[in-house]
């Protein structure tokens, strides 16, 4: 029998050993994940871009994580204060501005795919199968079924949208065009190879030539085998440590997903809403194009390259600014995805007031309007109804407004 008292060494040694073992375990985890050394053949940015453009879409399944850290005030807290609470669903749209969202994607690279937005204990699914699509919200068990009124017309539209030109642009040529365009305002370089979702990947870096833009650089990780993009990150000029916006796979398998994943069967007990999407006729398309022409003068672009400032006029800004204005009929502004809107926004009736208080929390008062300032993009809302947007500092926007 052991004696009731244990030696002093063991008394201190065992907890120390336990703590160090656990710490070592956590520290080792990323090392194990990165164990597949990225030894990829040498390449040039030009070659890589051509290979990416030449690559076929790959059937895959994987987890995509989106992270945003735009340096905005804590919008989730603001929304909570404003009464816009979707805490229990925990997959809320404010995560797109600050926070993390997890998506799962499956695609056969042809006509069928499934994308799900993962909440803590909920899920929003979008299943697409050729001419049909379904959305399903686990939160309130509603299905929305989208169909087109004339599938034959869809094929026709697909035809007209991609006319076969006389000189078919081969991928290398398209790459040349793209590179030439990019080269005007940015420099394209290759960083050291990296590992994304356990796969060896090249890293393309796009650096703006302009020194006044807020965008520091954009990195794109390209899979070394399939030449599919695995991760895109946008870095602001201020923060070299963490990307402002990042979208990438944390786990990916390049194989056709199972039929169970890609097919949809409406579960028993779910509420189903049928939505038939009418396809435009040729006349309507022409009309829309004419309307777009009319709309064009309200959007003006000044500056070049990364320093472009887009000025939009004629938006109902005054309503947002808290000035008396005729609010648009909310029912007319139906969200294109009712399920998504209900599940993740749950807009109460007092939405305009909420938008106002959100805006007040997000923006700062400047001369002649309000400025929403983030680490990548600045938005200037002027009292006269103009909205200026650009990846430039707020002062540049103010100067452009004058």
């Amino acid at each position, binding site marked *: 029998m052991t004696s009731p008292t244990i030696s002093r060494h063991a008394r201190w040694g065992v907890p120390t050993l336990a*703590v160090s073992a656990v710490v070592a375990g956590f520290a080792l985890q990323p090392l194990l994940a990165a164990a597949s050394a990225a030894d990829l053949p040498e390449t040039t940015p030009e070659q890589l871009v051509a290979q990416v453009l030449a690559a076929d879409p790959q059937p895959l399944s994987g987890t995509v994580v989106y992270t945003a850290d735009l340096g905005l005030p804590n919008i989730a807290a603001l929304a909570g204060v404003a009464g816009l609470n979707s805490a229990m669903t925990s997959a809320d749209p404010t995560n797109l501005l600050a926070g993390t969202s997890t998506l799962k994607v499956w695609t056969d690279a042809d006509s069928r795919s499934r994308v799900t937005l993962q909440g803590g204990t909920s899920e929003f699914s979008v299943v697409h199968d050729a001419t049909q699509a379904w959305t399903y919200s686990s939160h309130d*068990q509603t299905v929305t079924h989208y169909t087109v009124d004339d599938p034959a017309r869809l094929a026709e539209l697909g035809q007209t949208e991609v006319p076969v030109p006389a000189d078919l642009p081969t991928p290398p040529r398209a790459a040349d065009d793209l590179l030439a365009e990019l080269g005007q305002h940015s420099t394209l370089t290759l960083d050291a190879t990296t590992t994304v979702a356990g796969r060896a990947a090249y890293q393309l870096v796009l650096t703006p030539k302009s020194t006044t833009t807020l965008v520091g650089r954009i990195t794109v990780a390209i899979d070394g085998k399939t030449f599919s993009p695995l991760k895109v990150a946008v870095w602001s000029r201020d923060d070299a440590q963490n990307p402002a916006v990042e979208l990438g796979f944390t786990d990916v398998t390049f194989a056709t997903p199972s039929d169970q994943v890609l097919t949809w069967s409406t579960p028993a007990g779910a509420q189903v809403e049928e939505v038939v999407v009418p396809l435009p006729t040729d006349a309507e398309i022409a009309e829309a194009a004419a309307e777009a022409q009319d709309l064009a003068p309200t959007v003006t672009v000044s500056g070049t390259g990364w320093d472009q400032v887009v000025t939009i006029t004629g938006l109902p800004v005054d309503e947002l600014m808290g000035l008396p204005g005729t609010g648009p009929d909310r029912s007319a502004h139906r969200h294109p995805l009712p399920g998504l809107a209900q599940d993740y926004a749950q807009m109460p009736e007092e939405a305009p007031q909420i938008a106002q208080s959100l805006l007040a929390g997000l923006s700062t008062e400047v001369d002649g309007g309000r400025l929403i300032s983030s680490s990548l993009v600045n938005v200037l809302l002027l009292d006269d109804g103009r909205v200026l947007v650009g990846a430039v500092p707020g002062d540049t926007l103010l100067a452009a407004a004058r």
Partner: protein
Amino acid sequence: MPAETGPTAEPTTGPTQTERWTPRRGATGRLLAAELRLVLGRRRNQVFVAGLGLVPALLGLMLYLTRDDPRTSEGPGFLTQATNNGVFLVVASLFMCLPFLLPLTVALATGDAVAGEASAGTLRYLLVLPVSRSRLLFAKAVGALALVAVAVGVVATVGLVVGAALFGLHDVVLLSGTTVPLAEGMLRVLGVVVYIGLSLTGLVVVGLFVSTLTEVPIAAMVATVVVAVVSTILDTLPALSAVHPYLLTHYWYGFAELLRLEVDWNTVGTGLGLQVAWVVVFGAFAWSRFTQSNISS
């Protein structure tokens, strides 16, 4: 503390009565059996577990009576599913109990384990048993885990029975909207129950450690509940996102992965691995503390 008052209520049977004691096989087994009898036979534990069993019963009844009310669909997760399929009443009940009632169960089990014995003056009788303190601590941990397992099991069983009676058992619709046969659905729900049970092991060991620090069982119980609640609160603070993956309660709701179309075993494994880490660290702390000779009784 007067020696006469303590031990009568607590049946510390076995080795103490054996005059011709020699170490032999089966001693640990008898110690465990005695501890389980003690923990599961304690009247307040039985009453508490019975009270926990009322949660799914009341929840089911409430859902049954209000099933036509459109507001039901605005409840937190799994409530809506429960009205369509009794199987989900198990998940909904555990989901309701997880933030507070189950940590309270853990606190009840661990607070009594060491601090309770110390406060009642019975710990010294346990310590004079010719059983190593490591084994004694192990028996205490098993006893506490058993009570938690019984509590989770009771909630799940009552949930299933009440759910089946009120809403029937049907093929299970997963969070992804895919319908799987009832047998597979039941297996997944069983996985949820087991995952939730295992998710509490870290807190059990933390509670056991706290219990070795004090002679006041209430203090140990409160501290254990506070650990769970504070961990949950810290988990909601965005500024602390760097430490979130290491928080005791961070993966508690990972059980939802088992109800998705393709189970993300990564998350499930990470959640269970984190519990193992907490068990190892605080198990070592508790062992170190409990095996010290100057522990009070």
